């Protein structure tokens, strides 16, 4: 949390300092208000003992009190203004920084945090930090200042009565500590149990067909009942413990008032206390209790903010392992070469890829096939430097990818991921994502090549609105649009990461045919599951457990590669081969 404070700018520090000053002033005013009220009571008391008293005397005190009340109000408004401003600016700054940071991450950092966690860190956690900053500026400063002022006031009024307040304070702290240690640990349990409720329900929903097919509704309900009972029990316990809080606090405050009057009566008899002092004392004492109450509430509230702050800081202090290279001007076009490339994930024992070497030239198509977990996707992820190879080098146009400026490298590549991901906006804005200056002809061509005829059938055509996550077009359509998006970029090298599997065979075939003619100068790197997709590639690399077990054309591999033959046979019948 503290580390995040470096995003506080000079102005913010200045404003915070100002806030502290105003709060001290405000608390002082509040104490004065009680003091003046005491002086009115004292005037009456002296009047009762024989001093003359006029309405004017009272008004003389009264208008000062009104001025003070106004001063308090103005101070709080100013504090509130500054605190809101500082908190909002701070969280804006944090959001910008976190977003920028995450965008700079490579896959390694993305995987380390997981996307879902990064989203929470960028949204909920920052909001929590903002709230904490705001509360700190308002409560965390006011409460201790108030405590100091009020304590000095009560001790100044009567030492004997201060002892009673001290006892009440101790009892209150004891109560708060009790609640803190008994109930607070249960809060995280409640969260866990709620998660379990969620899990069982999610399970029931996602498996609803299975549940019904197996007539297992009762089983699910019993399972739910069990977690439900468990959660309810913990909830009940916490609620019953927490129900102690308000009656307890009220008891302590009322008890203290009674004690002050009771002890006060003795002190007045002895002559060491005045009636009006006793009245103001009661109010100061309440302020002491209240301020300690607030302070203990902060102990519940601030740790939550600190956790969020730490989570945010974890993102901000992580540095991407992949940096721009020095920048190169390659002489050739459309070449990709792997030289003895091996790769393993950081901290992992086993290599995902081992000793991969191949070369593909301008206009050629190279395909990668293998079972799940054979490392095909990992292999092509090394080209756009989502990860860096552990050993060996990867050359694009004769230069090591690590030497490129990332922007230059990316400009050469047209990447189509496994899952077609679209951005909210229109079809057009999605297509122009990598090349804002593309002409309408370019768009038309790309749609044609990617077999996206469905766009024409849409009422709005390319201006069709895409919902967040692209949920309002089908998976196959998303995939075709994301292929079109890469085509519009007119890259030297295409990378298709299993991009054809969401398409049916027919579309797959037509698309490859169109790609062949339209992008004949571009190099194509294809990862595939289906033999049909890669059957006419210039080179096929067969991967098995991260090693190259075959390299050649379809016909060659059928003859000399067992793994390839096995895959082919599982998909096609003998006569078809």
């Amino acid at each position, binding site marked *: 949390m503290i580390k995040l404070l470096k995003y506080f700018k000079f102005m913010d520090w200045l404003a915070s300092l100002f806030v502290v000053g105003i709060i001290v002033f405000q608390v002082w005013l509040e104490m004065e208000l009680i003091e003046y009220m005491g002086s*009115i009571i004292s005037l009456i*008391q002296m009047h*009762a003992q024989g001093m003359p008293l006029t309405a004017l005397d*009272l008004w003389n005190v009264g208008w000062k009190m009104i001025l003070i*009340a106004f001063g*308090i109000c103005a101070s*709080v408004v100013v504090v*509130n203004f500054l605190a809101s401003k500082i*908190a*909002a600016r701070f*969280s804006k700054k944090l*959001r*910008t920084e976190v*977003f920028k940071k995450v965008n700079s*991450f490579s*896959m390694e950092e*993305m*995987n380390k945090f997981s*996307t879902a966690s990064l*989203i929470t860190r960028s*949204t*909920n956690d920052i*909001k929590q930090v903002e709230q904490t900053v705001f509360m700190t500026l308002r409560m965390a400063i006011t409460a201790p200042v108030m405590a100091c002022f009020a304590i000095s006031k009560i001790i100044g009024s009567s030492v004997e009565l201060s002892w009673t307040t001290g006892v009440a304070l101790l009892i209150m702290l004891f109560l708060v500590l009790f609640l803190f240690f008994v109930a607070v640990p249960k809060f995280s349990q409640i969260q866990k149990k709620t998660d379990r409720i969620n*899990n069982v329900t*999610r399970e*029931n*929903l*996602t498996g*609803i*067909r*299975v549940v019904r*097919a*197996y007539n*297992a509704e009762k*089983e*699910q*309900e019993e399972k*739910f*009942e069990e977690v*439900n009972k468990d959660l*309810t029990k913990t909830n009940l316990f916490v*609620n019953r413990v927490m*129900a102690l809080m*308000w*009656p307890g606090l*009220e008891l302590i405050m009322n*008890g203290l008032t009674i004690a002050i*009057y*009771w002890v006060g009566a003795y002190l007045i008899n002895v002559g060491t206390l005045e*009636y009006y002092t006793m009245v103001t004392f009661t109010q100061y004492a309440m302020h002491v209790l209240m301020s300690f109450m607030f302070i203990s509430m902060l102990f519940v509230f601030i740790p939550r903010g600190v956790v969020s702050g730490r989570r945010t800081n974890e993102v901000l202090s992580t540095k991407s392992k992949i940096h721009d290279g020095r920048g190169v001007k390659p002489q050739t076009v459309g070449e990709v070469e792997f030289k003895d490339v091996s790769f393993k994930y950081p901290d992992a024992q086993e290599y995902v890829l081992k000793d991969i070497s191949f070369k593909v030239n301008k206009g050629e198509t190279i395909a990668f096939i293998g079972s799940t977990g*054979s490392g095909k996707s990992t292999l092509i992820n090394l080209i756009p430097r*989502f990860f860096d190879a552990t050993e060996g080098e990867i050359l694009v146009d004769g230069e090591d990818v690590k030497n490129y400026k990332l*922007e230059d490298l*990316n400009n050469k590549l047209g990447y189509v991921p496994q899952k077609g991901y679209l951005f909210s906006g229109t079809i057009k804005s999605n297509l122009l994502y*990598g090349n804002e200056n593309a002409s309408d002809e370019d768009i038309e061509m790309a749609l044609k090549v990617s077999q996206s005829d469905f766009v024409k059938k849409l009422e709005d055509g390319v201006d069709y609105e895409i919902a967040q996550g692209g949920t309002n077009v089908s998976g196959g359509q998303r995939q075709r649009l994301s292929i079109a*998006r890469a085509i519009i970029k007119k890259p030297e090298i295409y990378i298709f990461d299993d991009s054809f599997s969401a398409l049916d*065979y*027919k579309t797959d075939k037509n698309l490859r045919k169109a790609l062949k003619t339209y992008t004949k100068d571009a190099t194509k790197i294809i990862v595939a599951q289906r033999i*049909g997709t890669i059957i006419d590639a210039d080179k096929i690399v067969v991967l098995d457990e991260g090693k190259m077990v075959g390299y050649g054309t379809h016909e060659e591999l059928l003859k000399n590669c067992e793994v390839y033959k096995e895959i082919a046979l*599982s998909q096609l019948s003998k006569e078809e081969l």
Partner: protein
Amino acid sequence: MAKTEKTPKIKQRGPMGHGMNTGEKAKDFKKSMKMLIKSLRPNYVSIIFSLLFAIIGTVLALALPNVTKIVSEEIFSAISQNVSVNLQKVMTVSLWLVCMTLISALFSYFQGFILSGVTAKVTKRLRTQITQKINVLPLKYFDSQSYGDILSRVTNDVDTIGQTLNQSLSNIVTCVTMLLGALIMMFVNSWQLTLITLCAMPVSLILVSLIVKFSQKYFVKQQNSLGEINGIIEENYYAHNIVKTFNAEEKAQNDFEKVNKNLCHSAFMSQFLSGTMYPIMNFISNLVYVLICVVGGIMSIKNPLFAVTIVAFIQYMRTFNQQIGQVAQISGTLQSAAAASERVFEFLNEQEQEKEDQKTKVQLGSVKGLVEFKNVSFGYEKDKAIIHNFSAKILPGQKVAIVGPTGAGKTTLVNLLMRFYEIDGGEILIDGVNIKDMTRENVRALFGMVLQDTWIFDGTIRENIAYGTPNKTNKEIEDACCFAHIDHFIRSLPNGYDMMLDETANISQGQRQLLTIARAMVNNAPMLILDEATSSVDTRTEIMIQKAMDKLTEGRTSFVIAHRLSTIKNADQILVMKNGNIVEQGNHDELLKQNGFYAELYNSQFAE
């Protein structure tokens, strides 16, 4: 992005979805509240008791300042007359006070204790009802609803209702009692000072409503900006690779900054405006305080003993003003409670599947597996029939392959056979009995089902395999696993058959598939529904799955959503689907001869 794909994505609502609930309002406040109150009926007695306790506790607490006044009066008059305070009297009254405050606290706690119990019962009941409801809703309902939405009803909405019951219910009663009580006590003490207090009320109410009106606008703006910024964040993080390879970091940052700026402004404004409410209310309360001191002082000129009344009065005045502030808060919680209960009861009142208590049961052992479709028509939406007048007769033991391009609606037939959906016209007969005349439970027991979407739930492997048929012996389970070629794998796992499985369990998609095959095997139903996997399974496992599936279908009437050529060729009947409809039917050779859609499909898929 291997790791990210696993992250559960809640539909419609983003990760912040739950936080955004706060501003929600019920469409029909009265109706929702009525339903909530009605659902509390079994707990009325406890609730009435707890409210009674709340009133007693509050009344006692309210009496305190005025009893304390007796002590003050004693002290004050003693000072004025320069005599000693009667300590005996002070002690007696103080002891009374101690008793009162103790009893008041005790009653308040009883109230909280009872109400916590009620809350626990009610929330538990609601959750159970929702789960039971999930299991009796027609599957159709789930087509239009996202899981995230139903999930948030089970947890967030029920929690909101629970919190409201726990706090607001007693708060309302305490608040009303306090307001009335404090008002009465103020009048008892001094009607003049009471009038001053009451005069200030409309002023503060007007100011507060003005502030609320202004800040509400910014709260809405803030919610919108938050939603927008979450959208951008999710989108960019999930599509991280694309942002990078398309060099779009800067563009993304610019889009983000625009919304971020708006968010910053609206967050500031809403925070500031709503934060202004407190000092202004407090200012007015302080003004009244000053006026009471001064006017009370003036009144004391004639009667100095009035000074003690001022002190007591100030306490009542503070209580009164505090409760006015409470009213705004309570109405806020009631609003969100109404919204929550509206969502919960809306769900609980959804149309259920028709009850079928009086339907006949078919004896399982005697089923031969003759399935007939007679002029079946069906559509997912009314008036939009996708299957028209479909008829087919499948003899016992035959294998039916359902083929068609992606999205052709191949699962529709499964949905109809299993009565997940009801057909609109015609009939489906099993061994001559219309499936509408059997109970759904009965129909479903006739089929074993293996879907591509393998479903593993939290529990041991053994429980997962014996799912729906809990009284199977270990031998039967293990035999089924041998049969499904998964026994060896299971035994290689830590704890073997007793290993706990969950979402994150490290077993591959292919192994999951084998587990579900074993599950169908144990279930040993007379007929089968299979969905062949398309991809994401490595070759060797794929072959094992095929073998297991082939064994499973032996001698059973089976419906296979087929992707594999050998399955299709060996099928006794092929149903070819296109755009939801069955366009051709027959066996492989017949269909090829027809040279229609099947032939086209076959040529493009399997012949290069």
